[in-house]
């Protein structure tokens, strides 16, 4: 069990925070909502950590290796490029 904040402290409950986490991370929360949201984060370690985890999930996705161009496709495209150049 953790020590909770007061009821609906600073406008948001933790459950509401997780629902709009990406809006916050994307900078899409309206300014007045952002202030309330950040007030909650300042006082709530759980939500602060959750937001960090969402950011980490995005950052780790960036490190996942991407699909590589298959060799037959690369060769086919190069041929198409040469045809196009000649046309």
């Amino acid at each position: 069990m953790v020590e909770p904040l007061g009821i609906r402290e600073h406008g948001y409950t933790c459950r509401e925070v997780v629902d709009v986490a990406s809006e916050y991370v994307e900078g899409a929360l309206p300014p007045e909502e952002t202030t309330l949201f950040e007030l909650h984060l300042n006082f709530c370690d759980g939500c602060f950590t959750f937001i960090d985890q969402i950011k980490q999930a995005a950052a780790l996705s960036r490190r996942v290796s991407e699909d590589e161009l298959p060799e037959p496709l690369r060769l086919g495209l190069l041929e198409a490029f040469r045809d196009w150049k000649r046309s």
Partner: protein
Amino acid sequence: MSACTYSVGTVTEAHTAGHIAADDSALVARLRDGDERAFEEVVSSFYPSMIAVARGYARTRAVADEIVQEAWIGVLKGIDRFEGRSSLRTWVLQIVANIARTRAVREARSAPYSSFETGDAQPAVEPERFRGPDDPFPGHWRSYPTDWRTLPEERLVSNETLAVVKQAIAELPENQRIVITLRDMTGCSAAEVCDTLGLSPENQRVLLHRARARVRARLERHLDG
């Protein structure tokens, strides 16, 4: 097939019509000149995002690769008419999406984006993680998530952890998978994704949020387990 075949839709990025972004102008000039090395570079660097869009519509990887090939042929035919209303990549991705949609219509299948709101109302975090309505503090965490910043870097970015992320992304519903692939794996901007897939900014965010929330949940099981 002419460049006019493709309707690229409204572009919301702040590009001035007729003015190609500095990054793109040199590249576009080299492509127009028939510079093979420039073509090879751009083909490789755009491939992950192109295949992500194509796979949203195609049944198999082979079909998605055909769509990518067809798109490049369209790009070459239309490159002289590229005006820089969007970035080169956005323009190319829009051509991929148009070709993929046309093929999907021909094969009488609907695209995943047309039904993006249905079938997945899974919450970002399980409701049991929060205190119930009878608790003195309803809606607050029962126990806090673990702070991953305290984990050793080697564990957080280990091949094992990255494999968990990759698997989590692969298992996402198609529309979420496409959006997270474009945004987080290949680094497209929100505007680029909206323009390519014809999504509203709100819908793009909903899909991204659900996708990231699922990846986070899988990471939590892995890292806390």
